[in-house]
């Protein structure tokens, strides 16, 4: 934010014609140290048609730049500046706003000639505005002419401290806008150094950057007459809100800029490193910022960012001349050699009050509803994914989705997440026990569009209210090599030496160990939820084509990958008014209507391309009024192999009581499967097809084989009439200890010897031994192996299949079962997966 101040200062000092001299009151004078400075009262209204930056004859232009009063853009923005030279030689500026000012850019376009005539329909990234009432100080230290700091910078040292209140920060495209409303920002950056290094790089160093951001409401407007206002100009009602936002950050940044980009003779190269000493980030829903309303947040985050050789150029679309239909003109090209981040989120909380979050930040030990800790280690760098060479570059282009209008943002991106030495992974720690999604590799290659849209049909495309994120031919993929699980040492890197365990699909979370395909469609995030006034409403139409998904994935000793695969996957999913709210229970989701079709050409075992196939699977789903709650806390105390509310009762029923701690994740769902609406392709049907033409080859012909069809399955309350119960499921996900029994006498695959029936017990150094169960101590039981524990309970009153049919394209259709009903089911599975030795 110091840039903003510098820009403001520049504007103030460069606009003497707009400034008016005013008398300084005695009480104001009394605050000035020394009498060597000056005081300015500035009232200004600045409008600049175009402010542009050119790189090798291609330019990015900020058009319609203005500074005015926020309440009336024809009125003046007012500032009061007092300058003083302090006794130690520091040049100090104190500044304060006289009213709320607005700094605005109406359009951001890419141009070839400065000042070239634009039409309103020319592609534009859109407009931004920033309202602020600022109060603070800016001090230029007297540090002499010597080199400064660890980078031996020649320049200045600055102490920056300011607060912004009554702020707004907005993005506007095609008459619709999304903005932070009621924003306050407190910034302190003491000892900021800006200068030139001995090797002629600009160095911006922020060794002590502290900031707190509070946003009362994230508002949306689809009324073109509204611009940066809290209430709708037509109805007078407050604009719909997504909720509140809070961020608290303590970091240090060291950034280097040097001349020359990746292409041509001009451009920019950026290197930066940052240490996050602390970051708290949270989203609140219907909150009073105290005891009312609830928040989802990532608290006490620490970590680092390192950006290596990011070049900044203005370049033509890489598709120009190659694929003209995807040529969207000039763009700001950001290409980097490497981006590495290592983050540790101490607590991910669901459903907490702001009062509790504040207490936690203050003392560090106030109990909060925590899922647990997360470590996010990512390394973006050049590499390969399935032998395809990939790099890291993002083109920021103008226009967004073509049908939405001329304003919007397009990101033509190729990114590669490399993990050749397991430098990219995700770690989840639950009550001191950790699981690592090891060797995470991923890539994305395609166009992402960002627009603020209004509901309605426009140019043949249906839009919804909100922030629309569109996907156009986005090839993507991710996979992990498996899981590594152990007691946490506090250093997630220690997990890398643990045994590699096969990864499997996690029910409830819906996460597969690998997913690849080509993504098209959109996710539109609108304001307002199902509970209270605030929340998020999601409308989405997504297709994944030519994909594959692993339900079970295992990396073999020779580094080949085997699994259970959904190959030739085509997935088509639609969500209507899926509403997200935060309550005391956590994150609540209500789906007004959803339907999908998962069409899998081959259900394979072994290799995802060449493994033998069970045939084709098609799962079609249509449901209305689904509910989901995501809460902190897992299964808690459970009885395995028996029934009992406590350890004694469990043991008396020959069960084994396990306490899985206070952290973990619980997901509760209600699903209501409805009768088909054939005209809209909405139905519930499961189809298995085998013996197709070309079965066993790479290109079987779907629809030519024998199909087993479970048709029109629906839920009801057991009376065939009402459906208020649906299928209710609860998933408790923990990282927990579980007994592992040796199945044979002798040495296992790691050479550890034990007898059949003995238990595996972990040692403090990470190794293990087998012990006779009759000799186990309490300490031994506390050191059982760690695994991923998933407890699932599913209940339904009636699941009704309309028919089970056999269908063949030439042989016709015959009904195998005229009715199939599952009634009064209450199924619980409790499975803990540990490494296989």
């Amino acid at each position, binding site marked *: 934010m110091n840039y903003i101040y510098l820009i403001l200062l520049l504007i103030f000092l460069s606009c003497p014609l707009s400034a008016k001299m005013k008398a300084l009151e005695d009480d104001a004078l009394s605050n000035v140290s020394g009498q060597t400075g000056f005081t300015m009262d500035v009232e200004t209204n600045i409008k600049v048609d175009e402010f542009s930056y050119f790189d090798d004859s291609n330019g990015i232009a900020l058009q319609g730049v203005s500074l005015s009063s926020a309440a009336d853009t024809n009125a003046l923005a007012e500032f009061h500046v007092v300058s003083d030279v302090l006794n130690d030689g520091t040049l100090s500026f104190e500044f304060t706003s006289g009213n709320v000012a607005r700094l605005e850019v109406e359009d951001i376009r890419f141009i070839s000639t400065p000042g070239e005539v634009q039409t309103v329909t020319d592609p534009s990234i859109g407009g931004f505005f920033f309202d602020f009432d600022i109060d603070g100080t800016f001090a230029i230290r007297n540090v002499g002419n010597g080199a400064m700091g660890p980078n031996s910078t020649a320049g200045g040292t600055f102490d920056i401290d300011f607060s912004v209140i009554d702020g707004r920060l907005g993005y506007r495209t095609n008459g619709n806008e999304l903005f932070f409303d009621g924003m306050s920002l407190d910034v302190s950056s003491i000892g900021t150094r800006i200068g030139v290094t001995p090797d002629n790089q600009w160095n911006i160093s922020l060794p002590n950057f502290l900031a707190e951001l509070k946003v009362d409401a994230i508002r949306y407007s689809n009324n073109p007459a509204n611009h940066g206002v809290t209430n709708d100009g037509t109805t007078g009602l407050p604009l719909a809100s997504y909720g509140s936002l809070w961020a608290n950050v303590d970091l240090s940044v060291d950034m280097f800029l040097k001349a020359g980009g990746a292409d041509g003779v001009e451009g920019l190269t950026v290197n930066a490193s940052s240490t996050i000493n602390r970051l708290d980030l949270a989203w609140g829903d219907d909150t009073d910022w105290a005891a009312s309303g609830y928040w989802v947040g990532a608290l006490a985050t620490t970590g680092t960012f390192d950006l290596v050789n990011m070049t900044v150029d203005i370049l033509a679309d890489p598709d120009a001349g190659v694929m003209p239909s995807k040529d969207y003109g000039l763009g700001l090209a950001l290409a980097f050699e490497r981006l590495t981040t290592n983050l540790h989120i101490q607590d991910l909380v669901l459903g907490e009050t702001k009062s509790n979050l504040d207490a936690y930040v203050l003392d560090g030990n106030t109990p909060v509803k925590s899922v647990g800790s997360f470590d996010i280690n990512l390394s973006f760098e050049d590499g390969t994914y399935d032998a395809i060479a990939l790099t890291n570059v993002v083109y920021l282009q103008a226009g967004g989705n073509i049908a939405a209008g001329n304003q919007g943002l397009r990101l033509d991106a190729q990114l590669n997440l490399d993990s050749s030495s397991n430098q990219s992974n995700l770690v989840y720690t639950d009550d001191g026990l950790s699981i690592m999604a090891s060797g995470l590799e991923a890539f994305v290659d395609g166009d992402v569009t960002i627009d603020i849209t209004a509901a309605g049909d426009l140019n043949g495309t249906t839009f919804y209210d909100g922030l629309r994120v569109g996907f156009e031919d986005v090839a993507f993929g991710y996979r992990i090599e498996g899981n590594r699980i152990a007691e946490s040492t506090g250093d997630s890197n220690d997990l890398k030496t643990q045994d590699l365990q096969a990864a499997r699909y996690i029910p409830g979370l819906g996460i597969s160990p690998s997913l690849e395909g080509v993504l098209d469609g959109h996710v539109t995030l609108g304001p307002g939820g199902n509970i209270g006034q605030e929340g998020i409403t999601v409308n989405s139409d997504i297709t994944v084509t030519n994909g594959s998904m692993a339900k079970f994935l295992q990396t073999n000793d020779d580094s080949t990958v085997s*699994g259970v695969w959904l190959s030739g996957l085509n997935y088509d999913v639609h969500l209507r008014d899926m509403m997200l709210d935060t309550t005391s229970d956590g994150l609540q989701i209500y789906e007004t209507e959803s339907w999908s079709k998962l069409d899998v050409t081959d259900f394979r075992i072994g290799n995802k391309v060449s493994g033998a196939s069970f045939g084709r699977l098609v799962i079609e789903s249509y449901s209305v009024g689904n509910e989901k709650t995501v809460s902190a806390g897992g299964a808690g105390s459970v009885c395995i192999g028996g029934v009992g509310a406590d350890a004694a009762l469990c043991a008396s029923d020959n069960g084994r009581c396990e306490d899985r701690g206070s952290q973990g994740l619980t997901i509760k769902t209600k699903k209501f499967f409805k009768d088909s609406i054939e005209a809209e392709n909405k139905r519930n049907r499961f189809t298995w097809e085998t*013996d197709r033409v070309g079965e066993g080859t790479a290109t079987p012909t779907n629809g030519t084989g024998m199909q087993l069809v479970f048709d029109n399955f629906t839920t009801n309350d057991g009376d065939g009439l009402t459906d208020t119960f649906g299928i209710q499921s609860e998933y408790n996900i923990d990282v927990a200890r579980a007994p592992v029994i040796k199945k044979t006498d002798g040495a296992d695959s790691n050479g550890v010897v034990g007898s059949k029936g003995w238990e595996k017990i972990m040692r403090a150094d990470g190794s293990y031994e087998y012990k006779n169960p009759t000799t186990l101590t309490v300490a031994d039981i506390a050191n059982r192996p760690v695994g991923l524990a998933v407890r699932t309970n599913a209940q339904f009153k009636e699941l009704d299949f309309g028919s089970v049919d056999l269908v063949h394209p030439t042989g016709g259709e015959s009904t195998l079962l005229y009715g199939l009903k599952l009634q009064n089911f209450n199924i619980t*599975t409790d499975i803990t997966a540990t490494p296989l030795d």
Partner: protein
Amino acid sequence: MKKIMFLAFTLVFGSYGAYAEMSRIDDSDLSEVTGQSGVYLTGEVSFNEEGGPSDNSYFGACNVAEKECGARLTFQTQQDGGWFVLGGIRGSISFEGLTMQIRNISAASEFGGDGQFFGRDVMQIGLPESIRMNDFQFTLATGSSARPDDAGYTQVDFMTVEMSGDMTLQGNLLVFPTP
């Protein structure tokens, strides 16, 4: 074709009887298995241990003697015909040592020399040594209509199976598609 499809159905949802083979594998064999990064599963599966969600004239909680608390599966093979019933399903099965991994069978040393001719990946499910059945029970019957609380519903029970205690299951289940 119906028969083939039904066998295929059972492969996925049932006992894997058509295409699954039982095999015993010892530690020396395991050492030749490509990949040791499978998973070892411990846990239980339980049905209606304290009853299901329905509460009507037929279903209820397990502590209500006159009510049925088990789960029920019923199907009709002829239009307007009677219904096969698998009812009163309740109890639990707990286990330690169910393993899962993908195994490539292609070595001459496997399966008495037949492995080299097989040459494909299979899902190897290592059966747990011991399975504990805790009052696991079900009833086979026929019914006059789909729902037991229908007016005039009648049911004829053929047999009720109840299992408790430990069961020994050794060896491996190999699951693989066939051309």
